């Protein structure tokens, strides 16, 4: 039971330099990996590849030794760095959440999502409020792996601690694997069981 990147290569266009070259990574269920590297080293690209949003030019992404499923809700869910770019601006937030399945009241409560927010549009909420929707959406989908791309940098530290505590608790309960991209060394030490630096 593992999510694997096997010798993957990726570049944005034939004339562009390689962003990822011969990158290999394996994460088991129940494991929590923190990924760090200077900006521009391909952390977000790696996150997009692992969640199936991009296809590697060479190499493969395997989930339990099979390619990621092409249909249905992907068992590897990505939470983006910029929540305002990850929700449909013309959908009310209730619809945004329901896209991943049935609303779970316990998750809404754990993230402090006011019921009144469900009828609002994304632009009427702050970045931190929107990010809680994005994390809740990923958790409600029943994913086995969560890829968290700098999910808490736009949150105040109390909300950051709250969200991570909920995510870690849920991950423990469901034996999920977590890959967290973060620049914050202190945060990585708190949440991860293993850390890697892409630049090394």
């Amino acid at each position, binding site marked *: 039971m593992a999510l694997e990147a096997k010798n993957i290569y990726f570049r*944005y266009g034939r004339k562009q330099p390689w962003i990822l070259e011969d990158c290999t990574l394996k994460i088991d269920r129940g494991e929590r990996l923190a990924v760090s*590297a*200077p*900006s*521009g080293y391909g*952390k*977000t690209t790696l996150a997009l590849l692992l969640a199936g949003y991009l296809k590697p030019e060479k190499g493969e992404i395997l989930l339990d030794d099979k390619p990621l499923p092409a249909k249905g809700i992907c068992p590897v869910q990505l939470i983006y*760095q*910029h929540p*305002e*770019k990850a929700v449909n601006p013309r959908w009310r937030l209730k619809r945004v959440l329901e896209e991943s399945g049935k609303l779970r009241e316990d998750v809404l409560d754990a993230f*402090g999502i*006011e019921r*009144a927010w469900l009828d609002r549009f994304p632009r009427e*909420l*702050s*970045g*931190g*409020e929107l*990010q809680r929707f994005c994390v809740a959406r990923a958790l409600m989908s029943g994913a086995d792996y969560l890829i968290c791309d*700098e999910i808490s*940098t*736009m*949150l*105040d*530290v*109390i*909300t*950051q*601690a*709250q969200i*991570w*505590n909920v995510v870690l608790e849920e991950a423990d309960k469901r034996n999920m694997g977590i890959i967290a991209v973060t*620049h*914050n*060394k*202190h*945060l990585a*030490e*708190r949440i991860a069981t293993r850390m890697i630096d892409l630049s090394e």
Partner: protein
Amino acid sequence: MKQKDETILEIHDLSVSFRMYDHGLEQTDLQVISDLYLTVYPGEIVAVAGSSGSGKSLLASAILGILPGNATVHGHLHYKGQELTQERQEQLRGTDIALVPQSVAFLDPLMKVGAQADGHRKPLPTDKRKSIFKRLGLPDKTEQLYPFQLSGGMARRALVSTALLTDAKLVIADEPTPGMSLEQALEALRMFREMADDGKAVILITHDLDLAFEFTDRVAVFYAGTTVETALASDFKKGPDALRHPYSQALWRALPQNGFQPVCGFQPYAGALPKGCLYAPRCPYKTAQCMDAVPPVREIRGGEVRCYYGA
């Protein structure tokens, strides 16, 4: 205390509300900022910290006069001793007051980054821009790229460069550092520090509290649309005992390196604010008095706090 006419920015009793549709054609006003105060002197960096959704970005929009049409602003907003009217805001923004926007979506997706940072200035500040890009660690080829080709941290640095290019007396940087590595964030903050040491002023809206303590002079803590405390940055470095408000202390304790302790409950929703102190529902020290009336702002040990018991 310094004289009033020396301030670059002086804000008190500021409130911002949004007119929203309730049922059918009925409209209600939703007050999202209330009794907010903030004073900025030349030569200093003031960090604005606080919960997400506490009105930090709205304050930036209110200063620049770029709030959406359904917003109403009340209160005192003075720039260099003169009232900031809509007309004056339009004159000042982009020249005297510069903004580093919070969202990287502010970059024009159809314009190359270099040309975008240069803007419509005449003559084009290309050389200065190149040196700023270099200091921020953006490779030479960045200027020829479109925003979608940048990583999150590179886009942030491109946004920061736009403010550094102006001769603004006041820079409002709305979360400029997320996505940057520690070294890049430090360099960006060092450049803001140099601006401040030059006699300009910077308002740094941030969640990276540990960085803020190192580079700023004072920290204003916002909660639910109001200022709960302004403290010297050195007080934050000393730890919770040097802070005056229970919320500031909770912020300190929630840092990953200081315990990672969340606080129960959530910031009240703007439409359902408590009658008394806004933090009372989550405060471990609350009394009947706190639930009854909003505490006044008091000066304690060189800082200001909105709490009956802060000491």
